[in-house]
């Protein structure tokens, strides 16, 4: 296990596109979260988005908006294994096919962990900077960090599964982005009146972080008073975990069934 982590670490550490995309993601999310207090929210509950404990909602929401960047990191990372035929070489050198997939999944967890830690530090910094009267550093709102972590692993697992399936970086990115549109169509057109729509994978992952825009939209249409969820819905988190397990199992299955 430790060996597998250090293998993935060597591959990531020396990869310049990994650093460029990661730093880019960090800078943009810092900028976006920092600007959050100028966003119209239409609610008093969300009046001071950068203060504790609301910062946890704001930062995870903004950072999750930018999840495409780490997803591309994963797609490039997996694509490299096929491009350089190192997936093949790893199996020749003695990894079982299942262990190979698990070792690559470590990269998913590694990247998700780095980003989550960054978002925590970013929130602490901005929250501390914004001043104001602090009632509660880590209120129930802090649970959105856990939601964010699961969401990240979830979306990255989905990108992971697609890259194992399609091997080629370009195709994987197109399919990954394309699926976002497919799910929007499914959500708003096909399953409009069906509860199924709340169980679509990206919808489940999205529900793990706070979403002012969508919550507003839903409440407008339902004529109800806007009502924000201030803590993570653990049921959605469990569904998210199931989706992650499915992505991982399918990847293992596909990789085992095919010639490397």
């Amino acid at each position, binding site marked *: 296990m430790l*060996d*597998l982590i*250090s*293998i993935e670490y*060597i*591959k990531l550490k*020396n*990869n*310049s596109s990994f650093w460029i995309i990661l730093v880019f993601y960090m800078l943009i999310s810092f900028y976006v979260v920092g600007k959050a207090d100028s966003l119209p929210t239409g609610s008093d509950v969300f009046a001071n988005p950068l203060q504790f404990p609301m910062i946890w909602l704001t930062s995870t929401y903004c950072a999750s908006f930018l999840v495409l960047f780490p997803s591309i990191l994963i797609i490039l990372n997996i694509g*490299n294994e096929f491009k*350089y*035929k*190192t997936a*093949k*070489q*790893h*199996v*020749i*050198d*003695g*990894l*079982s*096919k299942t*262990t190979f997939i698990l070792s690559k999944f470590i990269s998913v967890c590694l990247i998700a962990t780095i980003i989550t830690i960054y978002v925590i530090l970013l929130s602490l910094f901005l929250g501390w900077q914004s001043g104001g009267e602090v009632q509660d550093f880590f209120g129930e709102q802090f649970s959105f960090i856990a939601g964010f972590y699961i969401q990240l692993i979830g979306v990255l697992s989905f990108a992971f599964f697609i890259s194992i399936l399609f091997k080629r970086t370009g195709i994987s990115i197109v399919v990954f982005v394309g699926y976002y549109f497919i799910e929007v169509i499914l959500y708003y057109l096909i399953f409009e009146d069906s509860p199924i729509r709340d169980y679509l994978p990206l919808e489940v992952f999205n529900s793990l972080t706070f979403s002012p825009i969508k919550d507003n939209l839903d409440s407008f249409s339902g004529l109800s008073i806007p009502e924000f969820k201030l803590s993570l819905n653990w049921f959605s988190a469990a569904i998210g975990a199931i989706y992650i397990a499915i992505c991982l199992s399918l990847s293992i299955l596909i990789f085992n069934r095919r*010639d*490397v």
Partner: protein
Amino acid sequence: MDTILKIDSLTKKYPSLFAVSQLSLSIDKGSVFGLLGPNGSGKTTTLGIILGVTSATSGNFSWFGKNNSSSDRKKIGALLETPNFYSYLSAKSNLKISAKIKGVDYKDIDRVAEIVNLKDRLNDKFKTYSLGMKQRLAIAAALLGKPEVLVLDEPTNGLDPQGIAEIRTVIQNISKIGVTIILASHALDEVEKVCSHVCVIKKGKSLIQGNVNDVLVGENLIEVASSEKEKLKELATTFSGFKTLKEENYYLLVTLQDSSSSIEFSKYLITNNIIITHFVKRTKSLEEFFLETTKDA
């Protein structure tokens, strides 16, 4: 003798063809086994199957007389078709990854780099390497952890004569220390020079296999010349072990029966008082043999 690898009626069917068909062979410990065949004859497919990256349609194989498990491959060093490394990493980082997978200490990296003569270039990125260096790095990676078996698929493919010579020296040195080597090649002289055993394959089928000398000697051929050409012809055809005769430019090419020896033939000529100006026992060259066996029927 210990058997390192046993292959039993291995078959791989692709939609349009049989890449490997009913291939059986057995490789002894310490031998240098050549898998010889023209391009597309199924060498890489065969090696891919025994290395766990290609699935067989039917048939079995067994390493070290055991059931196959992925961890057995850690005792095998292999280069399949191309050197597979991360181009953006240094050679050293690439070797570290291989070492980690095989559970080998990083200390071994210097040793294998020394063997393939890349010690000074370890910190350079893989993408800056020449083809020959890439190939040597792949051999270095295969040597990590002192494997019992080395599988090399066309290790000299695409190299210039100097690169070919370097790789061959490396292979010969490795085999001297008792490592079993399985070498796939389309180049006959390569197999002739370095292998102790050979299996010639064509369209996935084994045509012939065995000890290189047995397979390659083939027929009992003698070049013989004399100023008294007619007398020589007559004597040769009346020799008890005579089989066929062919007239070449300056000599006669005599084929003897398997049971007969060149010494007996020479004694026979001498006792018949003929002056011989040229007498050479010729082994049918592997080249002729190879072209003959692999040419399209």
